[in-house]
């Protein structure tokens, strides 16, 4: 409420700026290198490449300009070590892997450079744990929508790009709408 009032006040100062400052191109600079790609299955809940499965990706309804956390279960069914390094999405200015920690009694998600996932290991990116953070959303994320984003892995020194379908839940959602459903 207070923040809205303050923003309303700043609005007057911002209007002249909005007329004078040129738009900054925010186009994603995702370069397509020589690497593997995978896309979601017909249900949109599972993506798989080289034995790495990404299941039930979801996020919460959020506003443009905010950050949003994406959660997904990663199952390494291969015999190789996979390392997740982050992700990419046209929905946000940047995507990074983050980990939850508590600082002075406040929740904090700090960047993590990479996360190895051993052969046979399942890694759950979940609230108050690991997550992929969409920084500075370019548009609102509405409940019920979904969008595609890429997860950046490295396997045996080679980049693997797995595209997942991210379901947008309620702003206070704690799990994917199909959490608990098995996908074989």
């Amino acid at each position, binding site marked *: 409420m207070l923040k809205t009032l303050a923003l309303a006040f700043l609005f007057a100062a911002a*209007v002249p700026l909005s007329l004078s400052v040129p738009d900054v191109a925010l186009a994603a600079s995702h370069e397509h290198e020589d690497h593997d790609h995978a896309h979601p299955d017909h249900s949109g809940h599972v993506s798989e490449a080289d034995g790495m499965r990404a299941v039930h990706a979801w996020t919460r309804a959020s506003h443009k300009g905010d950050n949003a956390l994406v959660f997904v279960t990663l199952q390494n069914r291969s015999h190789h070590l996979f390392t997740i390094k982050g992700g990419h999405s046209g929905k946000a200015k940047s995507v990074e892997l983050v980990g939850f920690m508590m600082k002075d009694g406040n929740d904090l998600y700090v960047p993590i450079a990479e996360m190895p996932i051993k052969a046979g290991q399942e890694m759950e990116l979940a609230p108050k744990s*690991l997550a992929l953070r969409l920084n500075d959303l370019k548009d609102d994320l509405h409940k019920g929508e979904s969008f595609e984003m890429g997860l950046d892995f490295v396997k045996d020194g080679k980049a693997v790009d797995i595209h997942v379908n991210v379901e947008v839940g309620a702003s206070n959602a704690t799990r994917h709408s199909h959490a608990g459903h098995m996908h074989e």
Partner: protein
Amino acid sequence: MPDIYYDRLLPLWEALSPDMQDGLLLLFSILPCLMVGFIVTRGLKPFTLVKAMLWQFRWTNLVFVGLIAVSVALGVGLIAQERGLRRGTAKAAEKFDLIIASPGSEISNVMATVYLQASDMPLLDGKLYDEIANHDQVAFAAPIAFGDSFAGHPVIGTTPEFMAHLSGDLGEGKAFASHFEAVIGSNVDLDVGDRFTPAHGVGDSADAGAHDGDVFKVVGRMRKTGSPWDKAILVPVEAVWLVHGLGTGHRQARSGQVGPPFDPELFPGTPAILVHADQLWANYALKSEFSRPNSMAYFPGAVLSQLHGLLGDVRQVMSVMAVITQVLVTAGVLTGLVILTRLFSRRLALLRAVGAPRRFLFAIVWSFAATLIGSGALLGILLGFATTSVISGIVSERTDILVEASLSWPEFHLVALFVSFTILLAMFPAFLALRRPVVADLRT
């Protein structure tokens, strides 16, 4: 077309420092009050008369100011505790990166392991402990064995590494180096050199004679941690096993050893294991790896965060209740003011009779009420600092968690909103004063 709100306004707001944002929010909170004051007193000089009225009824006015001040002080003092408690509980848990225990309730486990509210829990076996302790991403893994006590102080079996991790350098004495040596928390009523025999269990049901003959000697005292561990007595985990007739966890040849490595086959079991990794990411990998059907890995910080979410809701309710209480007190004060205006109704009637405009009289009464409210709120903030400190001390004493609450921006915002709202309400007695019959008041 650019989205002005998100593309221009929000970045401007976010470019401000947190203090500037809070300062602006305070300004906006108090703005209605300033605007009303400007409009009501514009072009008028009511303050000489207001000053005279304040002085003439100074004792009554002091009571009104005092009532508002106490109401504000109690409100902000209580609300600030939520933040203090949140920080205090987080600080108490910050040394507990990752806990591995038998599957069950994470909340019960965190209460037992971090906050030492002992409860019965299944034990983890030596094979699992060995796997954790020898994991290449684990810096150290410490068993935390509880269940005994002395004079109300929990006796915790653990390792020298955990003690160093918890307290750093000891405040006094040395670390335990043999089985029946103990290191006490900073608030334990024992001295280095004292001896004690623990009771089996905790609380009223503890069996004081169960470990007769097992005498521990206090060899050191930890520095203050601000956590319930300040009231704990730390002993080698081998001693906890020994007094329960479970061996030492080591082969005969190394039976005097304190701390790991333990023999997986002789390891008697532990209700919880603290796991410390050097890398942040490793904690997540370990949590994933040791979340199994026979073990539960969790971050105490994440459990606390859920509890803090609940505290946040309580804070919102408390904030609303505090404001309502303050407004009710102020409404009572304003009602008193309505009665008080009767005392100087003759003077107001005289002013009207000599041609003072109604707006001037309105400004006098409003300024009088606004001064009482403003003074009460300011005094309330000053009292609030003292109240906050006193309440924090009581909470710390009762919970063994160091709560260091202090007033901050959220409380100032709350007081500013309260002042703005009640100063608008102060127009009510001013309107009523104008409606008084001039002739009748002149004759009184």
